C-alpha cells in the first residue's frame, strides 16, 4: 500500500504503516477499476485471491462457491471475466474483497457506471453485508447512494473535509424544505398569497403556473397553502413539500450543484462522499 506523506491512520486497531500486514488481513478492498484478472474465470479469480489471502485450497473453493451463489454469479462462475457484463464484474470484484470475511471493507464507487437494476442489486448486497456486521467505508459521488446506505457521511471537497454527520444531521444543518405549487392557470396574485408561508423569494416557471420557494417545514404546511390559495380564488393542481435531499446539502456546502464534481477527474481534486457504516 502507499505510504503517507504525513499523519497516521489506524484500521481495525492496527497502524497502517507499522502493522501493514495486520491491516491487510483485516480488510477487503474493491477499487473503482476492476481489480480482477480478465483472463481467469470468476471462480478462478476468487480462489486465487482467497489462496493469496492465506486460505487453504479447500477453504478457498468452498468460500468462492458460496460467494458466487450469494452474488448471483453461479451460472457465470466458469466463464472468463472478459465475457462478464459491467455489473457482473463489479459483483465479482466485491466478492473478491470478501473471500476472507474481513471485518472492514472499503468500496470505491461501487456503482459507478452500473445500470439502475444492477445498482439496486449492489445496494442490497451492501445492505446485507452491513447487516452482517461488516464495517464499511465507501466513497461515492451519488448523493442518493450516500443517503440510502450511510450511517455517517463525510463530505470531502478538494481534499478537505467540509462536513460530517448522519444524513439527517447534514440535512438539518443546511436548512429547510422546498415548496412547489402547480396552478391550473397562471395567476398574478399567487406569489403574494404564498408570501406569508415561505422563507425566501418565490420563483415562477412554466409561464407562471409553477411556483417554487424555500420553506421552513412545519406540520400542515400543504393544507395551509391550499387553503390560502383557495381563499384568493386560485385553483391548485398540485402541491408538494420536498424535504431537503443530499443534493441540496451538497449545493449549500460547496456552492455548486452536485453534478459538477462528477465531471471533474483526478482523484485528489474530486469531491467525494465518504460513507461509513458499521
Amino acid at each position, binding site marked *: *500500500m*502507499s*505510504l503517507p506523506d504525513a499523519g497516521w491512520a489506524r484500521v481495525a486497531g492496527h497502524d497502517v504503516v507499522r502493522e501493514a*500486514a*495486520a491491516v*491487510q*488481513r*483485516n*480488510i*477487503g*478492498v474493491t*477499487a473503482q*477499476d*476492476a*481489480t*480482477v*484478472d*480478465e*483472463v*481467469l474465470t470468476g471462480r*478462478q479469480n476468487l480462489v*486465487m*485471491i482467497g*489462496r*493469496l*489471502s*492465506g*486460505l487453504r485450497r479447500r*477453504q478457498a473453493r468452498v*468460500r468462492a462457491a458460496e460467494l458466487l451463489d450469494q452474488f448471483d454469479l453461479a451460472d457465470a462462475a466458469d466463464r*472468463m471475466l472478459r465475457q462478464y457484463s459491467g455489473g457482473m464484474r463489479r459483483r465479482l470484484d466485491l466478492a*473478491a*474483497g470478501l473471500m*476472507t*470475511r*474481513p*471485518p472492514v471493507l472499503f468500496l470505491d464507487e461501487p456503482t459507478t457506471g452500473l445500470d439502475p437494476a444492477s445498482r439496486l442489486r449492489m445496494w442490497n448486497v451492501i445492505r446485507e453485508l452491513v447487516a452482517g*456486521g461488516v464495517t464499511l467505508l465507501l466513497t461515492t459521488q451519488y448523493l442518493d447512494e450516500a443517503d440510502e446506505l450511510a450511517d455517517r457521511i463525510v463530505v470531502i471537497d478538494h481534499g478537505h473535509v467540509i462536513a460530517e454527520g448522519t444524513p439527517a444531521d447534514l440535512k438539518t444543518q443546511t436548512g429547510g424544505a422546498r415548496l412547489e405549487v402547480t396552478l391550473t392557470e397562471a395567476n398574478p396574485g399567487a406569489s403574494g398569497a404564498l408570501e406569508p408561508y415561505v422563507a425566501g423569494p418565490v420563483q415562477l416557471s412554466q409561464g407562471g403556473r409553477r411556483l417554487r420557494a424555500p420553506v421552513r417545514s412545519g406540520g400542515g404546511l400543504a393544507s395551509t397553502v391550499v387553503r390560502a390559495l383557495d381563499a384568493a380564488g386560485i385553483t391548485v393542481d398540485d402541491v408538494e413539500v420536498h424535504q431537503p435531499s443530499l443534493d441540496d446539502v451538497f449545493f449549500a456546502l460547496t456552492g455548486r450543484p452536485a453534478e459538477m464534481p462528477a465531471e471533474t477527474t483526478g482523484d485528489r481534486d474530486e469531491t467525494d462522499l465518504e460513507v461509513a457504516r458499521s
Partner: protein
Amino acid sequence: MTIATLPAPSRRLGQRFADVLVLTGRNLVHIAREPLQLSDVTIQPVLFTLLFVYVFGSGVVLPGGGSYKEFAIAGLLALNITTSAMGTAVGLSTDLNTGVIDRFRTLPMWRAAVLVGRSAADLSTAALCTLIVAVTGLVIAWRPHASVLSVIAGFALFLLFSYALSWGCGCLGIVSKGPESAQGIGLVILFPLAIVSNGLVPTQHMPTVLRVIADWNPVSAVTAAARHLWGNPNPSATIQAWPMQHPVAASLLWSIALLVIFAPLATLLYRRRTTG
C-alpha cells in the same frame, strides 16, 4: 469472524511457496487460454530451425569441419531462448498495467511471489521451447554424440540461463511504461545479444570488435557449453578467450551472476513501483 488468522512464522515459508504456486498456476492458465502468445516458443523455433539450417547452412563452412546441422541446433536453441525471454518483460508489464496488481497490493501475500511466479511460468515455456527445438533437430537429423547425462546437462544449462535472463527481463518489464515499450526495448537488447554470438556462425571471421564481444557473450558460453556436452561441432574450442576455453564454467558463472544481480534488483524495482 476472520478465517485468515496471523500465520505462525513456521507457516510463513509454506505460505510463500503457496503464493508462488498460485501465481505460477495463474500465469499458466493465461498461457493456455492464449496459445497464440506461445508462438515464439512453438512456431518460431521450428521456423527458425528450418530457415537457418537450410538457408544459412548451405553457405557456412565450419572451421575444423563438421555438419552445420549439428553445429546449429545449440545456437538455434540459444537464439529462441534468448529472444523468448522478452515474454517475461511483456507479461510482467501487462500485469502491472492492469488492476489485478492493485488487488495483490491489498492482500497479505508475499510480494515477490508475483515475480517468482512469473519466472517459474516462463521457465516452463522455455522448457517447451527446448523440447520443440530438440524434436525439430532430431527430425532434420541432428544427433548428440554423448552420454544421456551429458546431453541432459546441456539442456539444463540452457534452462538455467533462460531462468536467469528472465529476471533481467523482469526488471525491464517493471521499469517500462507498458507491454509495447517493454517489447520494443527488449528486442533491441535481446536480438543483438542472441545474434552477436557463436550461435549461428563461427566467430572466427567476425570483425575484431564483434568477435571479442561474441567470445565473451553469455549466449556464446551457453552455446559452446552445450555443443561441448552434446559432442557436436564446437569451433569455439580453439578460441583463446577464457569463456570459450571453459564454456561450462563460464555459462554457470554468467547465469549465477545474472541471477544475483537481477533477482534482488527486480524485487526492489517491483516494490518501488507498487508502493505509491
